[in-house]
């Protein structure tokens, strides 16, 4: 087990390093000159050249990469290009990318946690219900419901919820935040719609998985034995079958955390929620290269880690799989 774990971790480190190369390569060839972006169109060629030299942009790409990657290893991701301001004489430096990332990932983690908190209990409940009442109208209703939400892109789910809860019922705000730097903790009601959107999509996958594995368990011999020896049906379902059925479900939930990292980009953009996902769209639309590099690397790292966690949970809980 330990060797297996070490091998997987070593592979993950190599993969993440290659990922950083990819991210740097993609952002390095982006059209647009960073120096012109900072100083504006009216800057003189001398000023531009000076700034480029100061920022090391006149160095070969390999040197630039090594400097950037060296910084990453020390937790220094550089400064954002777009959050600082430029006066006539001087420029204030942009906010440190690492500061922005810490602030935004707290908000995103809060949103993800809320989504999991809503999504996991409901999805496991729906999955068990559908499995126990297999082939009845309840099962079919759950199937239609989950299929509908799997088939909607996150932004569609988001805007449909906005139409119902904001436009028609006037219960909740359509935008999740006015001040992009304020903490979301002050106003939890802003979390409801984005969290519900993420939960609905996640719910569908998890409910389907729970139903499938629950049906498998209910067919097994130990469940029949437990029922035949006179245990109440409720005890057999919840104490015996559900525990085993949750093994694949746990994997799906861990995978969902990875999926959430992608879902956050769209959902946070729909609700203007100040998290990592919205930071990605901001960095792309404003061509903020250091910010884009930092946030893409962070998202890729979290995504890979949670996929690895899903693999490990699955391997750990399922003794039939050999560690190779």
């Amino acid at each position, binding site marked *: 087990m330990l060797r297996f774990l070490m091998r997987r971790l070593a592979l993950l480190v190599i993969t993440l390093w290659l990922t950083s190369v990819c991210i740097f390569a993609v952002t390095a060839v982006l059209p647009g000159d960073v120096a012109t972006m900072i100083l504006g169109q009216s800057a003189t060629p001398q000023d531009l050249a000076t700034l480029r030299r100061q920022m090391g942009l006149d160095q070969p790409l390999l040197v630039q990469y090594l400097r950037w990657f060296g910084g990453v290893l020390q937790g220094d991701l550089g400064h954002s290009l777009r959050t600082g301001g430029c006066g006539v004489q001087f420029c204030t430096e942009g906010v440190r990318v690492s500061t922005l990332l810490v602030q935004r990932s707290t908000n995103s983690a809060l949103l993800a946690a809320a989504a999991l908190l809503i999504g996991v209990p409901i999805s496991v409940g729906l999955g068990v219900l559908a499995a126990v009442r297999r082939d009845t109208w309840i099962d079919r209703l759950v199937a239609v419901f989950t299929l509908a939400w799997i088939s909607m892109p996150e*932004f569609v789910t988001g805007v449909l919820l906005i139409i119902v809860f904001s436009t028609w019922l006037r219960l909740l705000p359509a935008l999740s935040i006015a001040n992009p730097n304020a903490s979301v903790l002050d106003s939890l009601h802003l979390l409801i719609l984005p969290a519900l959107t993420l939960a609905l999509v996640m719910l569908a996958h998890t409910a389907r998985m729970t139903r499938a594995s629950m049906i498998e368990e209910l067919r097994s011999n130990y469940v029949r034995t437990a029922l035949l020896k006179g245990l109440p049906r409720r005890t057999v379902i919840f104490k015996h079958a559900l525990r085993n059925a949750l093994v694949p479900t746990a994997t799906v939930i861990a995978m969902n955390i990875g999926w959430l990292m992608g879902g956050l980009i769209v959902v946070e953009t729909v609700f203007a929620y100040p998290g990592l996902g919205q930071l990605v769209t901001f960095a792309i639309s404003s061509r903020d290269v250091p910010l884009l590099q930092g946030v893409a690397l962070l998202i890729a790292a979290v995504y890979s880690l949670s996929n690895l966690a899903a693999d490990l949970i699955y391997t750990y809980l399922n003794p039939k799989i050999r560690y190779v």
Partner: protein
Amino acid sequence: MTQGVSLAPAQHGRVGQAAAVRAHALAAAIRFLLRIASTPTGAIGLGLLTLHLLLVLLGPSLAPYEPTALNLRHTLEAPSAAFPMGTDNSGRDVLSRVMAGARSIVLLSIASTALAMVLGILLGLVAGYLGGWKDEVVMRGMDVLMSFPALLLAMLVLTMLGPANANVILATALVFTPRVARVVRSVVLELRTREFVDAARLRGESTVFIWLREILPNASAVILVETGIRLSYAILLIASLGFLGLGVQPPTPDWGLMVSEGRQYIYQAWWMVFFPSIAIGSLVIAVSLLTDRLEQVLNAQRSFEGS
């Protein structure tokens, strides 16, 4: 043309044979479609998809108004007899735009799925059949691509290449290629050890012949189902890219883009986002239902042949 009478019993020769083969294939295809449509989910999926394909073919010409025509006298009008799905902030008819918008998303997702399948099958064959260092190189490369969430990778590629339809196809194919390659590789690993592959190898057949004639036909069920799954994900991804402004560019009608344009008018004009949203959802539902049903039919066939 002689083909018109070729089914007559007196007609022989090549033309007659070819037509007979074609008629046979057509009959088989119709039988297969009827089988798919023989359950409620299959029938609903097939019906919905046919509707969407009709929109792709005829949508722009059947649309009651010009999809890009501005009409500033009728901005943000609620659904009515004249405008069944209302109008948008420029007075454009939402129904016409929904009808015309099917073309871009359907064609883009089919093209990118096809490209991803071809590349993924090729890489899966190389990795699974040739094995060794080639397997390591291909699969570690795929791991790097898969260390990004699908949407983020597509966004990065499109930011680099610029938003154009060809680039949307490329970016989407790049996202799904590693996922296809993984599935194909695992099937190939299993098929590689079977007797008929050994026999072909001992006969001295070339690797390409074995891939095309021995392995792929036996993997066709898995590949078909995988195509359906990838197609539904491609639609979701391309719609999201459109919504984020990285896909089809205005004023071309595109469902994802329409939702994003309507987002800021959501309090005054819910119909601007509601109808394109339903269009996207129903398209993906159609593809998912059909894929589910396809899997059932293929599994039933396989267990029938196996017994």
